[in-house]
């Protein structure tokens, strides 16, 4: 019971702390902008630098690092175990968070063993080439809405977004494809047959899935008629039929599914983890010791966070606190409203990270031909069909209401098919009812 109350408290405290964190970021952004203007820098410079430091280096990095422990702890909960709890400070295991320190210490102090026949420059470059692009993706993600902040006597318009560039989603595609270089270079430059096979697997998988990744977002682009992520988020704040928020999830459920799967393949995690396959087959970073491996490892988790951020921005309404928006806007001051919005966004990101970890622990690894089949024979045709369907529906009804109706029908269909479990009796076995009867009988 004590744990139940504690966990309920924890679940309430996390969103609240997200809101407070957003408020702090807004505050620091405001002062950074003020200082930058005072120093004579152009508008938006100070806030952008503060955002890079706070959001990208702070929030994303911290979340990704915490996810490495979270994965162990959460998988333990899924599998009826306790999980890491042996490192204790003052008798507290604190959910295993101290393993972060132990991991960091281990990575940093490990002996640096390098293959003698490596191509040196590329070998050193590869972890950074894997690390940087996934990081950069977060630059275009709008974390919080723009708001007028009063700093001293001046008023600055601050948004929690590093860069609002016209290319928007195209930048996302471009930066995401750069991640291939990291894996391919790591495989090639280690001068190891196993590593290069892993690198080739990684490249082929990532290049395949980029096709469906791009096509899956075309529908969402058409619906919001923009490539800029902040405008896509803005467009999702409208109400259709007067009550239904125009979320990408309602307009583009199939597109969301395809995007999520493709992006999942881009992160190279189970069930798509055959480029690395840490446990059995050997991956592209076999020859990397210590912190270089650590960077590859961390890059994976940063990709998880960034994927969650982009999915929630494009399909789950970004920073809109969906159903409570009107009420919150009336009751709160603009700055606090913006903070709540940003907190809602961070909460969505956390939920989607959690969803990804759950999926990672649900499915076993694909075989290579299954991966390619899934991409080229299922996702790609479905994505193309989705593009045509969306285009036609928007052409017929530019108010998107028809698109929403079809989207809701798609969701209902998916739920119906998922729920329609055929109760086949396994030969030689028992039905579930018979098994329960046996289990209930006294031993």
């Amino acid at each position, binding site marked *: 019971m004590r744990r139940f109350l504690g966990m309920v408290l924890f679940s309430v405290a996390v969103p609240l702390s997200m809101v407070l964190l957003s408020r702090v970021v807004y505050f620091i952004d405001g002062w950074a902008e003020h200082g930058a203007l005072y120093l004579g820098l152009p508008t938006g410079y100070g806030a952008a630098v503060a955002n890079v430091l706070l959001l990208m280096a702070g929030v994303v990095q911290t979340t990704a690092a915490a996810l490495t422990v979270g994965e162990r702890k959460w998988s333990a909960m*899924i599998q009826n175990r306790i999980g890491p709890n042996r490192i204790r400070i003052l008798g507290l295991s604190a959910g295993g968070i101290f393993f972060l320190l132990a991991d960091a210490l281990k990575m940093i102090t490990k002996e640096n063993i390098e293959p003698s026949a490596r191509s040196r420059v590329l070998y050193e470059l590869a972890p950074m080439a894997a690390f940087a692009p996934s990081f950069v993706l977060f630059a275009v993600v709008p974390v919080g809405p723009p708001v007028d902040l009063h700093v001293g006597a001046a008023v600055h318009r601050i948004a929690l977004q590093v860069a609002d560039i016209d290319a928007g989603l195209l930048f996302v595609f471009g930066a995401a494809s750069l991640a291939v270089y990291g894996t391919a270079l790591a495989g090639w430059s280690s001068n190891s047959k196993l590593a290069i096979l892993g690198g080739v697997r990684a490249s082929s998988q990532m290049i395949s899935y980029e096709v469906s990744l791009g096509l899956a977002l075309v529908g969402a682009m058409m619906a919001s008629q923009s490539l800029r992520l902040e405008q896509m988020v803005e467009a999702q704040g409208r109400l259709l039929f007067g009550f239904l928020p125009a979320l990408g999830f309602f307009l583009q459920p199939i597109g969301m599914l395809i995007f999520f799967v493709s992006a999942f393949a881009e992160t190279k995690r189970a069930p798509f983890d055959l480029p690395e396959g840490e446990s059995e087959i050997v991956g592209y970073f076999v020859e990397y010791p210590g912190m270089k491996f650590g960077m590859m490892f961390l890059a994976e988790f940063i990709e998880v966070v960034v994927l969650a951020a982009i999915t929630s921005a494009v399909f789950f309404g970004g920073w809109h606190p969906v159903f409570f928006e009107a009420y919150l806007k009336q009751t709160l001051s603009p700055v606090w409203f913006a903070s709540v919005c940003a907190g809602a966004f961070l909460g969505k990101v956390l939920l989607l990270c959690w969803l990804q970890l759950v999926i990672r622990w649900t499915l076993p690894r694909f075989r290579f031909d299954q991966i390619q089949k899934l991409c080229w024979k299922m996702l790609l045709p479905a994505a193309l069909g989705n593009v045509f369907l969306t285009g036609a529906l928007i052409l017929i009804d530019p108010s998107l209401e028809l698109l929403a109706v079809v989207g809701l029908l798609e969701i209902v269909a998916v739920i119906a098919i998922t729920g329609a479990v055929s109760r086949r009796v396994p030969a030689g076995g028992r039905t579930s009812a018979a098994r329960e009867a046996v289990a209930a009988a006294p031993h």
Partner: protein
Amino acid sequence: MPYQLEDQDADLREQMYFPEVIRGVGILMRQFLRNFFFGREKNPDLLARDRSLSQNATVAYPEERVAYPPGYRGLHRLVPREDGKPRCVACYMCATVCPAQCIYIEAGEYPDDPIEKYPVKFVIDELRCVVCGFCVEACPKDAIRMDTGEHAPPSYDRAAQVWDETRLLRGPPVSYQYDPWLRRGSPSIPKEKLAEMRARAKPFPANAGDEYAQTPGFSVRALAAEAKARGELLGRF
């Protein structure tokens, strides 16, 4: 008991792949939330745990221990009499039957009692012991038992694994009505003590049932329950 699943082709719904994945994710989410919100029951008796909320099956070993079954062969002990001396009469049966030859006995006599023998030295090398339990079976006096429910504790040197009579002689005392020192009396036992021991003695079991497999008051489960009551089994997780 695992039940056989016939190897059959996937039906259309399963071939669509995603519905099944969504179902699987749903199952795992439920399991996660269950174990997230509800704490693990710490009952070391796994089968008695209430699994309706959290299904966590872990026993955090060094802090919590599963009670061993009554027949578990643990560390040896030399069973004491009521007056604190060993029941052992140094007959060498256990040392003879021991397949690992890990028991060493030196016999001695109580100076004022010409009949009674006792072990001056009784040494068991726990590293050589194969835990077969033959010594317990061979003993005619129920003087050696393996009912402590403990493992041989780890040590940094081999010498610590050689247990002599001072370490082996422990646990609750046992007296049987036919014990020679009770029937005849013994100069080494004071008169009033002897009367008390006679009063407490039981008949020797004709065949060893569950009641005799475990000394009353020395049950492993009871020890675990006591430790739990003292709060030693409650770690923080």
